[in-house]
């Protein structure tokens, strides 16, 4: 699940490469020919495959975006994983475990896709663990009641699907193919999340209160998942030119709002925005101001759970070092024994 629709600069990137505003270096004649070929492929809506020539900035942007996406999958296991032990029925427990397991699998697809660009999983994880690489801001918010699990399915996965469906047509083949597989599983989870909320909204007063409380806490964070307004998103134009991004942040956000409002109505919850209303002239919903200061604070490490999330990942990695070393040592011994037998 869960990419942010944009790729936010990683901590390690310098301002130039982060914004991709660097003036392209003067191209050699050969590079110019390759660049022209690449541009033509993009213009024809073709796919770029791992062994083909691509501009360095394109490669770098994709590594950043796909690895952020992969990190988001695995950090995203934590807020929902938080409720596995307490899921209130065995059916919901099984659904939740299956979902979190799928997220681990999505992480694996995405690390593999990123590796086709010449990076390694260890390098990417090192960047995550040292705080250089980002992951989706949404996972820095806590899951405080059981309805959060349903709301994460409905709204967070819903926003992620809006982001990811256009990525199925992304110009980089391995990423596009990973997204096709991810979206299939994701849509299923989203419906299950919504269904869990429907059941709660037909239940006791306390259950209804839980759902409304969860919607109130997650709504604005989900809108922010689509990234900064188009006017403040200089990466977007380049992403569009490269066929990585297909629909702008604001357009995706609008689509999400328009799709979600009727779902909220069916559910019987209100969305916490007094400015939210149908605009007849635009044939779309108007909505209020997103708190971008809070969004950037969270992206930059100062959200409510940033330290706990990263701390849990780093601890898992450090505590697991001996396990990985054992597996390697055993594999080497096996190999040595096989060589000896063969000799």
């Amino acid at each position, binding site marked *: 699940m869960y990419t942010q629709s944009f790729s936010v600069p990683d901590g390690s990137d310098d301002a130039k490469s982060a914004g991709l505003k660097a003036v392209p270096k003067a191209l050699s004649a050969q590079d110019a020919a390759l660049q022209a070929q690449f541009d033509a492929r993009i213009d024809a809506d073709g796919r770029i495959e791992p062994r083909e020539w691509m501009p360095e900035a394109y490669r770098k942007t994709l590594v950043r975006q796909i690895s952020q996406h992969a990190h988001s999958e695995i950090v995203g296991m*934590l807020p929902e994983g938080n409720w596995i032990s307490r899921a209130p029925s065995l059916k919901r427990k099984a659904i939740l475990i299956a979902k979190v397991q799928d997220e681990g699998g999505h992480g694996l697809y995405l690390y593999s896709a990123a590796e086709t660009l010449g990076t390694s999983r260890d390098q990417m994880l090192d960047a995550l663990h040292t705080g250089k690489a980002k992951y989706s801001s949404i996972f820095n918010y806590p899951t405080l009641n059981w309805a959060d699990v349903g709301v994460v399915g409905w709204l967070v996965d819903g926003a992620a699907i809006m982001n990811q469906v256009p990525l199925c047509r992304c110009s980089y083949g391995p990423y596009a193919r990973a997204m096709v597989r991810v979206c299939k599983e994701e849509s299923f989870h989203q419906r299950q999340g919504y269904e869990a909320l429907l059941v709660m909204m037909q239940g006791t007063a306390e259950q209804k209160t839980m759902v409304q409380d969860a919607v109130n806490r997650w709504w604005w964070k989900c809108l922010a998942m689509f990234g900064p307004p188009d006017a403040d998103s200089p990466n977007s134009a380049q992403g569009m030119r490269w066929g990585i991004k297909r629909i702008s942040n604001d357009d995706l956000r609008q689509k999400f709002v328009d799709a979600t409002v009727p779902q909220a109505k069916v559910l019987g919850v209100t969305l916490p925005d007094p400015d939210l209303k149908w605009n007849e002239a635009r044939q779309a919903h108007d909505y209020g101001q997103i708190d971008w200061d809070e969004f950037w604070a969270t992206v930059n490490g100062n959200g409510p759970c940033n330290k706990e999330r990263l701390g849990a990942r780093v601890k898992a990695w450090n505590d697991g070092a001996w396990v990985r070393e054992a597996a390697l040592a*055993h594999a080497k011994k096996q190999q040595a024994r096989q060589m000896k037998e063969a000799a």
Partner: protein
Amino acid sequence: MNAPIDYLLHLADNALILGQRNAEWCGHGPILEEDIALSNNSLDLIGQARMLYQHAAELQGNGATEDTLAYFRDVPDFKNYTLCELPHMPLMAATSAGDRDFATTIVRNFLYSSLMVLVWDQLQNSKDAQLAAIAAKSLKEVRYHLRHSRDWLVRMGDGTAESHTKAQTALDQFMSYTQEFWTTSPAEAAALATGTGIDMAALQNDWNQIVNEALKEATLQRPAAGGFVPTGKQGLHSEHLGFVLAEMQSLARAHPEATW
């Protein structure tokens, strides 16, 4: 012919409590593949527990469901092996928050799966047709669990000096708990008498063979099982189960009227 309810609950509680424990690794594994593997194992076990509880609930009647059995019974009502409820860490007095030691987890899964491949295989012939069908499904899953835990047991035992020590420590810690496998509870005796259950003592040689072969390959020493013989399947547990249930049941018990 139906198996005694307490016997079904024993099988179900084993699966649920161990499933609950293995899910504690979700997001915290030593490598992403193991987050997935342990969640997968947990999901299988919870699936087995659900089938067994549903069968038990139907026999029990009185509005019992899989969820009333999982969420509204207390410690003495649970009939799982004590082995299944112990935390993933060196033994110490219970607290609700535990650390996670991968060797402990793997050794426990190995000892339990080595038993359950034999149990489910035999129970396919249970005179309780429903239980026989559940056994057939569960056998396929537990073979997979055994392969996973056995592979890791060998990797750890025949890996580094550190991993060897950790695996040996976990084995030393858990072996005496396996004594409970070979005792006979009243529920097991009743199930055996009706042909719905099996003779556990008769599985001991096969279990020893599975365990000893794996330990040899893993270059681990089999500790003598001795000392206290646990009694979890009779409802007398360790101090750990209370915390597992307090956490697992908290939400369901706070809203007993709710459906989810």
